[in-house]
Structure formats: structure tokens, C-alpha cells
């Protein structure tokens, strides 16, 4: 059985960078655009890397900044200073 993790963001300017960074680091992920929101799902695992986000934004980025634009998640969370990971084990 397929086991998808997902994350959804408000469709706003901040989230564009998050979506770009996620798409780059998770080439298998599927990005779905819905009214006012963007939902990204992938089999078993999704990662947001601080390093990729900092490249996209051209500034320092704290992983916890994603809390401002996230709407929902599905999967076990593993967060530290460098990444935010969603996964089913």
C-alpha cells in the first residue's frame, strides 16, 4: 500500500520559495495547486533543507520560519537546525 506524507502551505510569496526548495530536494514529490493553498505529497518522505532555502532566499533562514506559512502536515516530524523532515517509517 502506498504511504504518502504531505505538507500544505498558504499560497503566498514566502511559500513560493518553500515550494521551489522542496521540489528541488524531493524530485519525486507531487505539487498540487488548490485555491489559496499549495499541497505537496510524496511517498514516505519529504525534506525541507535550510541550506536550499537560504540559497533560494539569499538570506539566513530559520527552519522554524516554516511555521508561519504551513497549513497542514501528514507524517512523523523530525526537525533540527538544518532540516524539517516528514516521514512514515
Amino acid at each position, binding site marked *: 500500500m502506498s504511504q504518502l506524507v504531505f505538507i500544505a502551505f498558504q499560497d503566498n510569496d514566502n511559500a513560493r520559495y518553500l515550494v521551489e526548495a522542496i521540489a528541488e530536494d524531493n524530485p519525486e514529490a507531487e505539487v498540487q495547486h488548490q485555491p*489559496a493553498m499549495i499541497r505537496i505529497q510524496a511517498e514516505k518522505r519529504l525534506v525541507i533543507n535550510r541550506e536550499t532555502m537560504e540559497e533560494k532566499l539569499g538570506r539566513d533562514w530559520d527552519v522554524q520560519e516554516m511555521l508561519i506559512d504551513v497549513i497542514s502536515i501528514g507524517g512523523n516530524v523530525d526537525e533540527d537546525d538544518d532540516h524539517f523532515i516528514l516521514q512514515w517509517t
Partner: protein
Amino acid sequence: MVVKNKKLNLKDKYQYLTRDMAWEPTYQKKKDIFPDEDFEGIKITDWSQWEDPFRLTMDAYWKYQAEKEKKLYAIFDAFAQNNGHQNISDARYVNALKLFLSGVSPLEHAAFQGYAKVGRQFSGAGARVACQMQAIDELRHSQTQQHAMSHYNKHFNGLHDAAHMHDRVWFLSVPKSFFDDARSAGPFEFLTAISFSFEYVLTNLLFVPFMSGAAYNGDMATVTFGFSAQSDEARHMTLGLEVIKFILEQHEDNVPIVQRWIDKWFWRGFRLLSLVGMMMDYMLPNKVMSWAEAWEVYYEQNGGALFKDLERYGIRPPKYQDIANDAKHHVSHQAWSTFYQYSQATNFHTWMPEKEEMDWLSEKYPDTFDKYYRPRFEHWAKEHAEGRRFYNNTLPQLCQVCQIPTIFTEKEDPTALSHRQIVHEGERYHFCSDGCCDIFKHEPEKYVQAWLPVHQIYQGNCEGGDVETVVSKYYHINIGEDNFEYIGSPDHKRWLSIKGKSSDTKADSAKQDAA
């Protein structure tokens, strides 16, 4: 060149600012300080195993919450200054907000009270901090929702006394009794009920597709409070999953207790969400996705992945899940049918779907809508057109547990009402399903006390025996303004005048004749 301040990493900061703020009591026994921690039978051997994967500390919490609030209130201001209510898809949409303000926002407040209470009852510091943040979040949700909808209250009826209605109106006893049930349980059951079953498994269905729908219907204020609240929910959901894993890992004796709570609260939540199904399929004039589609994505797909992950702890998917999955083809239609018949006693209007909306429902529900529901709706539409708008004047039989009228049907036969009954200590009790009946059988002493609105009206406890007196005096619903059919209502006329159209309905001309 920016020089980075030397700062603690996330893990250390979390350790110092949560766990290290707690202390071991010396002159009082732990048992006396946390007296409610073990009566439910849950065994905790090591609280230090509690994990908060977000590792959120109060300083970061205030920083991010302040930023969210600033963004949110900027949008509320812009919405009000631009008369945003004039740009929604159709004023029928506002009726979903009336239901939201009286049915959902008070639950946010109940959640605030619930987390403030259970946060005091755990001896583990990690759990106490997580509950404290969630309590503040829930209070914020209750307040921001009231602020967002206060703009609509200036222009539409039915939004004037939501908190009072929540405590009294018949259908609002459904959400109210749901949270009262959770809050009057022990602390671990409360977390399983609200953090896990409700927040993790089910609230996405309300706050994600419905809010996306609000945006699609031009309501920027609502989608923004919805998504701003939901950004907190992402943390709550994570807490919900961690709570379950923590309890299950602590002791094998906890597994059957938690399984029973999951069964109970899945079913309670599924029944409660009938209201949301109806909001999505019938109250959003511009459609985003059907209730059945939302259920497939957010319960069957995401919930399926979740319960597969929990298998390793000996947890199986909720009992009666198959009945809930099948009901996705029916519940929204059955709920809307019920509210349509009882609009004389609601703080919002109802209507029959327009032709294109009926066609959309046929397309989204190919196996059920045309067969079971369209003929009834077309009949009611015809009756209305001929001046006989149907209202049901018989008060319905309520389920003793979920408090919803026994309107749902059997999985094997969608033309047969699902009805269960048992006799307990000489009294007969009625239920909408095996799911609700099972819940009663396990704790009859709790559910015999249910405050059932229909029984209370018949017992004379609602300021009168006739519907009109109950509705106006006891519920504070303004008759002829807040209730009845949408077509021809004051809201409808106001909307037509906003849009520069004249009203040409029967109800209107009747009123003009009278004048």
C-alpha cells in the same frame, strides 16, 4: 558581513527552556500534585521520553505567533475597508459562516479550556508546555474567528448571539456535547480524543478543503483566519501523533485502552463532521471538491498511511471505519435534507440546490445522488415553487450519544434508517448506529445524563412547549430574519440590492402586498 550571534542549537534550547524549568517536588507527594494522572489505567514509566519534534520554546512561540497575528489582522482590516462582503460569490455562502460561528468557534474556546485543564494534570514538563501553547493557540482561534466574522454580523442576520446559541440550539448540542464529552474525560483520553483523533485524523477535513473553498468564494477574511489557525494545527497534529506514540511506547497495557479511545473518538468525530460535509457540498456556491473527495484524500489516504504506521504498536484502524468510508456518499445529502426541513429552528437559511448545483452533485456522487436524493430535492423545489415550502413540524428522535437526529441509513440499504436501541436500568435509549450504541454501552453512567434538546423541549425546560417560543425566547433566533428559507429572506434581499438587482420572488411580493 553578518556576524552570527552564538546561539544554542534547537535541541539544547528546548531542553533548557522546557524540561529544565521543571523541578522535583520535595515537601508534597507527586501523587497529590497530579491526582488525575493514573485513574484511567494509563501507565507512564518515564516522562522524559516525551518528544516535541518541533522543539518549540516560549520565546520562539511568541515571535512566530506575533508575526501570524500581524499578517492576519492586516487582512481583516483590508477586507473590512474594501467591503469584502460585497465580493463574495453569493450571500448563501454566509450561512456557512453562521454555522461556523455558532458551531465551531465555541469549540475552539472549549479546546482552550480543555488544554489549560489537562496541562495542569501531567507530571511531565514536556507535556505541560505543549498543552500550555495549545491552550493559548485555541484561545487565539476563538478570538480571531469572532473578529473575522464580526464584519459579516454588520451586514447579515444570524450572527448576533453565537455563544448563547451554542449552549441551547438543538443542532448545536452536537458539537457542544462532543467537546463536553472529551473535557469531562480523564487527561489521557482528552488528548487521544482531541489531539489525536480530532486534530490529527479529522480536522484537516474542515480547515483545509473548506477554507480553500472560502477563498474560492471570495472570502479572504475567513480563509485567512482558517489558514492562520491551521498553521497552529500543524503543531497540534504533530503533538497528537507524538502523544499516541508516547503512550503506546510506555507500557503494553496502554494499547487496548488507547485502541478503544481511538474507536470511540473516530466515530464521534466522523458523526460531528456530517455538518462539515453539508457545508462543503451545499453551502459553498463555488465548489472546490466534494465531501466524498475530501474524505478520500484526508481520511482514506492520509489516515490510511497513519494507521499503517501505528500497526507496529498493535493499533488497528478504527472500528466501523468501513461504515464511515461508505457513508461519504450519503452524509452530506442526508444532513442537508434534515436542515432544509427544520430551517424554522436554525440561525441560518437553507435552500434547494440550483440546477447546475444538482448536476454537480450527480457528477460527484454518481452512485447515490440521482438514485436517492435528487427526486426528493426536486419534489421539495416544486412544492416551494407552488407556494408550499416544506417544513417538518415534528421534532426528531435524537441519538443519545452524538445527539444527531437518527437520520442516517444502513450501509447495506440506503433506504432504511439506521436505528439501534437498548434498555438500561429500565429506561430505553436510542442510537443512530452501532458506533454510538457501543460508546453508550461502555459508559452508560455518562451518557444517561445527556442533555438532549428535543427531550428538554418536551419536558418544558426551554421556556415553552411550541417551536416558535423556543426558537425566539430560548434560542434568541429572530423569527423571519435569521431562520426559514433563503429565497426571499432579508439576507437575500440585501444581497440583491448590493448587486443592484431587484428581488422578484413570491415571498417578496407577498410582503409588499401586505405593506
